[in-house]
């Protein structure tokens, strides 16, 4: 059992995600940085999509009522056992009655704490992930609060302490990032200039960034004049309501693009000018406010190559920790 002494800013139970219900308005949820999720789980011998704690910006304080093997991957936030520092990207033991806490965030945005056995909350629609907007899944459908108690699963032959992710397979996080996108489906709403502005601007992530969406500031995009079609609003950024893919970049009012992430709403009436490659959603996940971001256009072949590269990297992670 883990007792939450301090919850952190917004600590949630997340796993590989809740696929298959977006058509009903229920988004995939799950760890925003899927790579770090897998790294943390593999370190402690869990299945790669097991339920972990996603920690954003500020770490919780957790008391372990039984010994456990844990690992922290993702954003740099030095873990401490009873005040003594432990490494990131490496499994370590926490003894009965000991407290796990975290230092200040120094790089990235989200850290993932895996515990051998996984965080044992009930599955909802096949996943333990928290979808807080829908009060669904996770621990009572919400971020952790002080006094919460979390059960740890058994039946996993947990790996021991001291397992390490090799340096070249660790996440590296910067305040200057490139996020690869495919243009569309609604980039025809942008003028040639508007399109150039979108791709040439160094956007800055605003504090309005959470599991639902990440809002950026930096420029206004010029649109093409038109008569609004039946069903679309009057603003040039309005479209006839359409489904929103995870990773799609909508631009309400032609200012401040929003990248939708894994807790997104499933549809609406804003033009989506581009969509972030799935593999680069991890990059968005590790962006803290102020991160300078360029959206870099790739074509379908480029996107498929990026996906294959991402897959190979995950395979290497499995090989290293298998």
């Amino acid at each position, binding site marked *: 059992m883990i007792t939450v002494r301090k919850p952190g*800013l*917004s600590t949630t139970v997340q796993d590989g995600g809740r696929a298959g219900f977006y058509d009903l308005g229920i988004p995939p949820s799950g760890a925003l940085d899927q790579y770090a999720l897998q790294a943390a789980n593999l370190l402690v011998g869990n299945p790669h999509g097991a339920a972990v704690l996603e920690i*954003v*910006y*500020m770490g919780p304080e957790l008391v372990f009522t039984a010994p456990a093997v844990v690992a922290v991957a993702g954003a740099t936030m030095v873990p401490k056992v009873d005040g003594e520092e432990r490494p990131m990207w490496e499994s370590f033991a926490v003894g009965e009655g000991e407290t796990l806490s975290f*230092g*200040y*965030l*120094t790089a990235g*945005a989200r850290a993932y704490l895996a515990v051998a056995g996984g965080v044992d909350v009930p599955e909802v629609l096949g996943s333990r992930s928290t979808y807080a907007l829908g009060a669904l899944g996770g621990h009572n459908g919400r971020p952790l609060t002080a006094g919460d108690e979390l059960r740890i699963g058994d039946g996993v032959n947990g790996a021991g302490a001291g397992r390490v992710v090799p340096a070249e397979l660790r996440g590296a996080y910067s305040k200057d990032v490139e996020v690869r996108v495919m243009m569309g489906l609604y980039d025809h709403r942008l003028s040639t200039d508007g399109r150039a502005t979108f791709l040439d601007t160094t956007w800055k992530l605003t*504090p*309005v*960034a*959470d599991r639902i969406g990440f809002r950026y500031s930096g420029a206004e995009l010029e649109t093409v004049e038109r008569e609004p079609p039946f069903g679309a609003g009057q603003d040039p950024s309005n479209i006839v309501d359409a489904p929103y893919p995870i990773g799609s970049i909508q631009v309400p009012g032609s200012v401040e693009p929003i990248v939708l992430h894994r807790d997104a709403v499933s549809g609406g009436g804003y033009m989506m000018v581009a969509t972030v490659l799935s593999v680069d959603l991890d990059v968005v996940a590790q962006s*803290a*406010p*102020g991160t300078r971001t360029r959206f870099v256009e790739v074509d379908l072949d480029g996107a498929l190559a990026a996906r294959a590269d991402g897959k190979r990297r995950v395979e290497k992670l499995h090989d290293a920790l298998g």
Partner: protein
Amino acid sequence: MTRHEVVSPIPGVFYRKPDPESELFTDTGRSVGADDTVGLVEVMKSFHEVPAGAAGTVVEFLVENEAEVDAGQVVAVVETDGAGTE
């Protein structure tokens, strides 16, 4: 006299007032209690109070109103009245 650094535990935008029309929470030269708020940090659509953390006199602000801060960044310095107040 000890210098106590007031640190923002989270990244975001730092505000020295509860809202644009209000007075500053505190200012250099004024005394504060350990639990007094010196500013707010906005992130993820909510505002989080940054307490002074020690009783004493505010001697310095290192971050402007509405400036961006990183987690762990020192936003102000409080000179504490004596030993053992931190």
